[in-house]
């Protein structure tokens, strides 16, 4: 019996240890925020996500694509159909070929994907000194501790330490592994003026854009967690019944 308990406890701890076993190299302490979307009851703050979209649209989309989102998806964070049509129509989208075989530009429709700032990766690198601004659709899932990583990175463009030499075209970032990043500081206080009147500090913009990016990476999150609660509750109740049934049936065994 003692062995059993010891083993079970050990397996749980060891299993968890292995599951989260990652080698970190230099340990960077990221900024930490209690995100409203984390935990089993997490939700996407619609207001914050809309502000985050504004940050993405006005600042980030100059260099960063988001090809796995379409304009019609914006209804999930609270934009109306008309607002979406207006946003989409503000972009020129490539379409075609037409009857003479040529590609042409037309205003965006709600079914179009977010347009990319560059035609392909090579064009993106050429315009950014060889560095590729990654597509942001999945960035939250593509980095360990994604939300806090992005949150820290955006606020991490501090003064470089005096004893450090930067490579050509590199910028110092306190939270980027290696501390040299090709991206110049994207956010400063008051850089954009939020349409809902919120004060646009760097921290506020970073927080809002993380919530937006979280939605972009996992649009199914709220439905998933809601369904999860129902499934686990059902299983727990059914489990109780099966346990009682098992005990009843096994009473007969002598």
């Amino acid at each position, binding site marked *: 019996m003692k*062995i059993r308990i010891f083993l079970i406890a050990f397996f749980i701890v060891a299993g968890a240890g*292995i*599951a989260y076993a990652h080698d970190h190299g230099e340990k960077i302490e990221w900024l930490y925020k209690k995100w409203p979307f984390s935990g089993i009851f997490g939700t996407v703050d619609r207001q914050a996500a809309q502000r985050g979209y504004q940050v993405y649209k006005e600042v980030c989309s100059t260099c960063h694509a988001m090809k796995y989102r379409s304009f019609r998806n914006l209804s999930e964070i609270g934009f109306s159909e008309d607002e979406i049509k207006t946003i989409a129509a503000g972009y020129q989208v490539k379409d075609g070929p037409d009857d003479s075989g040529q590609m042409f530009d037309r205003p965006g429709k709600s079914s179009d994907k977010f347009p990319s700032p560059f035609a392909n990766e090579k064009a993106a690198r050429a315009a950014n000194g060889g560095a590729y601004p990654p597509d942001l659709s999945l960035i939250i899932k*593509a980095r360990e501790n994604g939300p806090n990583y992005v949150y820290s990175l955006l606020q991490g463009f501090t003064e470089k330490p005096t004893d450090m030499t930067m490579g050509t075209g590199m910028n110092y970032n306190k939270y980027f592994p290696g501390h040299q990043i090709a991206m110049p500081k994207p956010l400063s206080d008051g850089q954009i003026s939020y349409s809902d009147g919120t004060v646009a500090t760097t921290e506020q913009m970073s927080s809002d854009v993380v919530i937006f990016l979280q939605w972009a990476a996992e649009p199914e999150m709220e439905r*998933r967690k809601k369904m999860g609660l129902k499934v686990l509750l059902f*299983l727990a109740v059914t489990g109780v019944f099966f346990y009682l049934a098992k005990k009843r049936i*096994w009473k007969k065994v002598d």
Partner: protein
Amino acid sequence: MKEHKIQKPGIIGWIDYRLPIFTFADSFLNKYPTPKNLSYLWSMGSIAGIMLVLQIITGVFLAMHYTPHVDYAFDSVENIMRDVNYGWLLRYMHAVGASMFFVVVYIHIARGLYYGSYKGPRELLWQIGVVIFLTMMATAFMGYVLPWGQMSFWGATVITNLFSAFPVVGKYIVTWLWGGFSVDNPTLNRFFSLHYLLPFLIVAFVMLHLIALHEHGSNNPTGVEVKTKKDTIPFHPYYTIKDMFGFIVFFLIYFYMVFFSPNSLGDPDNYIVANPLVTPAHIVPEWYFLPFYAILRGIPNKLAGVCCMFGSILILFFLPWLDKAKTKSGTYRPYFKWFCLLFILDTIALGYLGAQEPQGIYVILSRLCTLYYFGYFLAILPLLSRFETPLPAPNSISEDYAKKHCQ
């Protein structure tokens, strides 16, 4: 010549007279005499069976939306996650399901190791199990390549490159596996084809596994074979209900992960599209391969490392002849018990080490753990067979059961 059977009444009787599936199901799942003292460790087999079915079903539905081409694979998976109705659920069930399948099978194997389930007359049962394990690993390895993320690509590159270690023919084997000069579209396409095929081979092996099991019946925690009818109870309703309760507990863990923590066992790098020009900082296989990865990296010579890695699994085939002790169960083998537990911990330690950077203390520890791993099979077990004095085992299962459940 079969004795003349009597056709029983009704549709079931009509079918059964011509194709005895009902008689078979009755003897297999209903009447099958099972030792009455099995613990929940014996439920792992049926849970593994359920996971195989679930993986096949989710896999078939995922394959309706997946495109196995390097330019479309990653996008098709994102399409499943974002646009296909419940696509995210199918994908997460399949990915988490693979991990849970291995958790269950590892517990199942550990049970076999501790209670001597590999000993006669169950040697072939055990060996078919090892074949199932190997096929599962091949299936999982190829499946992980399909999303075509960074880890998919680089994991495939590293592991297929291992075959170049073989002298003379190594390079040709690798080119043949790749269908080209690096992991690329031909590789992805064939991995998709084989990933779809192999699970059905696993189903066939599982059937053989079950036939072998039913020939001599299940082992039990005392390791004492069934002697009289008093030792057994019919599979139904006792083990059907017990296994079903086991399913529910398992599903609670499984679905907690699917709905609330689906990416915790995965690698974030796999959410970046495969890029043959950029190698990720830490190439790590999925957790269930980590112990073998540690063994591979611990050996300084490439060919020796590959041989030890495969050897660490192939050695399981010989277990019934390495451990010839008459007493089956670790409960009654006072020294074996601790060496066996140490072996299990050693494998877990190897798993942890497999995820670390291959430098400094981690290398030394990997080698020590590898030494114990092989030492357990090649030295400890044979020696224990000869020199260990076991404790007296119970006279029968029913006696032991009555003692433990005295009213």
